[in-house]
């Protein structure tokens, strides 16, 4: 359809029937001059603190981890802390982290209260507490032969170690990615061998226990890191769930997940972010898709004071399928940010992206930058992107920047963006059937997110998420 090098975003904005929300349309990406390779003292100090905290850890001498730390340290030398002047952080204020005294958590402290909460799913699970894998809380029986799940230090098969060492340098990211690389106490590996299908999803549960009280300068940080490798024809379902043990605690979760999907492989990924409402949550998800592979992501992010998800998907072979569905809810004074980038370099890729967000608080904010790159050889790509935002309060803000960069000339690409209040026609339909306005608003607000929630594959998860969202949208029961 389009063959221009760059298409700018379209906005449809229906006026609010209540007070007008603030909508800030964003202009096209600006090309910024490359930064001089100068070290940022704050970043260096942070890196040092992270390194120091890990000096006692034993698995650090393992080749894959060493490699990771080397790459990360090197990139950190030329990176500075992002400011609002940097395009990727133009609308996302990270001063919450910068103005705190960041403290790496050296020892996990599994709280006994946590155990109770953990009994809610029957899936094989891997539990992280403050970034550390806790085997005693994990439950990994019934995994098929050849599947490995655990710390890289526990891999006995040399071929897997080799494969992991090979993969680690293939990825890269921004400052936060590198900080995680320096601060990660371990590399947790999920390895699915060729042709193997893991039934029932693997549940990765990241619990944050350490946290400071509001007003304290201290900001405990955790750096969990996971590498998922699904070999040719393999299939895996994973659930990543981030939870804060205390809704009022301040902490920083800086996590990275990397996924490699071999030829014809399939990964179905559910990502639930339900951190404390005072936490900073920065997350990287990087995916490499080989030919004919399929990746499906369903994300529900509701927690955190500052939540940023960097989602990078790189196609490394033809005929891939990618489906991204994300729902962000800012029900309080919080920022929900999704920066996604899908790079298509090979023919006949198929992708669908649906991003929905609700800002239900006058100090709430949502940010979406969705980039789809259709490069020269990505002919017959079919890429669709849609973002819809619902602003429910005066001064609630959303910044959306859907952007397609298309170089191939035989492609089908579409994108759309809509920002609105609830539809009056729909509200009236409820009223005409005897349902009062407030109940109708609640039902419609909830249904807005339900479109994404319905895409979660697992009924128990779907039910939990639904109840949680209902509670957030309507804190007073009844």
């Amino acid at each position, binding site marked *: 359809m389009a063959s221009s090098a760059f298409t700018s975003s379209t906005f449809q904005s229906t006026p609010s029937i209540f007070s007008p929300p603030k909508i800030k349309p964003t202009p096209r990406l600006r090309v910024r001059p490359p930064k001089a390779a100068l070290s940022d003292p704050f970043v260096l100090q942070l890196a040092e603190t992270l390194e120091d905290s890990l000096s006692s850890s034993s698995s650090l001498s393992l080749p894959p981890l060493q490699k990771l730390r080397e790459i990360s340290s090197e990139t950190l030398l030329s990176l500075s802390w992002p400011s609002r002047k940097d395009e990727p952080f133009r609308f996302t204020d990270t001063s919450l982290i910068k103005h705190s005294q960041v403290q790496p958590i050296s020892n996990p402290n599994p709280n006994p209260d946590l155990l109770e909460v953990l009994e809610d799913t029957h899936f094989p699970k891997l539990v992280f507490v403050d970034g550390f894998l806790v085997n005693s809380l994990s439950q990994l029986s019934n995994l098929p032969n050849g599947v490995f799940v655990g710390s890289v230090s526990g891999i006995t098969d040399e071929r897997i170690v080799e494969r992991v060492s090979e993969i680690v340098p293939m990825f890269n990211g921004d400052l936060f990615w590198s900080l995680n690389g320096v601060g990660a106490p371990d590399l947790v590996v999920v390895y699915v061998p060729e042709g193997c299908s893991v039934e029932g999803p693997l549940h990765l549960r990241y619990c944050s226990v350490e946290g400071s009280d509001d007003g304290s300068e201290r900001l405990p940080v955790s750096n969990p890191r996971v590498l998922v490798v699904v070999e040719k024809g393999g299939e895996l379902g994973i659930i990543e769930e981030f939870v804060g043990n205390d809704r009022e605690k301040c902490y920083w979760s800086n996590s990275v997940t990397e996924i490699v999907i071999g030829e014809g492989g399939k990964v179905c990924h559910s990502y639930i972010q339900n951190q404390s409402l005072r936490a900073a949550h920065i997350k990287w998800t990087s995916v490499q898709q080989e030919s004919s592979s399929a990746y499906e992501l369903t994300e529900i992010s509701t927690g955190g004071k500052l939540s940023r998800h960097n989602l990078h998907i790189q196609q490394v072979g033809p005929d891939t399928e990618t489906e991204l569905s994300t729902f962000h809810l800012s029900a309080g004074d919080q920022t929900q940010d999704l920066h996604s980038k899908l790079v298509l370099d090979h023919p006949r890729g198929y992708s669908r992206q649906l991003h929905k967000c609700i800002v239900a608080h006058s100090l709430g904010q949502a940010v979406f930058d969705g980039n789809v790159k259709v490069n020269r050889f990505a002919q017959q790509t079919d890429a669709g992107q849609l973002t819809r935002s619902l602003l429910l309060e005066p001064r609630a803000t959303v910044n959306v920047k859907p952007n397609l960069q298309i170089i191939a000339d035989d492609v089908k690409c579409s994108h759309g963006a809509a920002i609105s209040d609830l539809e*009056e*026609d729909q509200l009236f339909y*409820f*009223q*005409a*059937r*005897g349902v009062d306005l407030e*109940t109708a608003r609640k*039902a*419609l607000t909830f249904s807005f997110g339900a479109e994404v929630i319905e895409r979660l594959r697992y009924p128990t998860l779907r039910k939990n998420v639904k109840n949680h969202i209902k509670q957030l949208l309507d804190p007073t029961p009844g």
Partner: protein
Amino acid sequence: MALLRPCPSIPSAPLPLPSSYPNSRNSIFLVRRFPSLVQSSHCRRSLFLPKATAAIDSQATASTVNGQDGLPKLLLEVKDLRAVVAESKQEILKGVNLVVYEGEVHAIMGKNGSGKSTFSKVLVGHPDYEVTSGSIVFKGENLLDMEPEERSLAGLFMSFQSPVEIPGVSNIDFLNMAYNARRRKLGLPELGPIEFYGYIAPKLDLVNMKIDFLNRNVNEGFSGGERKRNEILQLAVLGAELALLDEIDSGLDVDALRDVAKSVNGLLTPKNSVLMITHYLRLLEFIRPTYIHIMDDGKIVRTGDISIAKVLEKEGYKAISAM
């Protein structure tokens, strides 16, 4: 046919009656008391309400508005209703008068843009329109003082001409919410999803729909026929003393129309009434109206029986204005 209700001392007046007429009832009242005023005799209620008709015929005492003495109650009384489009202030309704008694079936016909749909939307309180003067009394209460949901709970139901899609809300959840709103109003305990399922499942037969209809999102991806059936299903579940059916026949094939008409007829009792808006005689052959009103330029310009629709079908609106 005998006079259905003895008349107090009202002199015979030409139609339509001026709105300033001192009697509280408008032209319709007169029509039914003076059948000779309309072109042909009408067989009121003979199809639907034989009992009610018999009861009325045997009555020889003065009629009362409140329906004591077993007479049908006055359900809706619209007097000199004027309404404008809220945004542009363009006047659409220019003095509508209408009276509906319980058990009656009325039809409103008229050219496109004559104000039929606006009239039904104004009755249910659609925010796109503002009432500038006149009154609407429904079951003795001032409808204009009520919010749309209160009007619904009071027993007024409008089937939408093109019902809106509500993605993310399943049909059964929607119906359950609406049904529970009614139960709350009546002081009854609300029904949970499972109890409600038991209540609603048998109603699906009424509109000839399969059970999976309930799990689909409200009107999302519904065909024209499915949307209309869904409206009637809602009517069946929620009940209504006055059902306003806005072009319930548009976009339906003959079979679907018969189904929908059958379900509407199945819902009719001597206590509730229907006001339908249609362009076609076909619907009126399935759901027989007691009265047919012709609307033109925001007013009801003529009232009669089925013969008026027949003339219309044959000769168009020109013939009506020439009558």
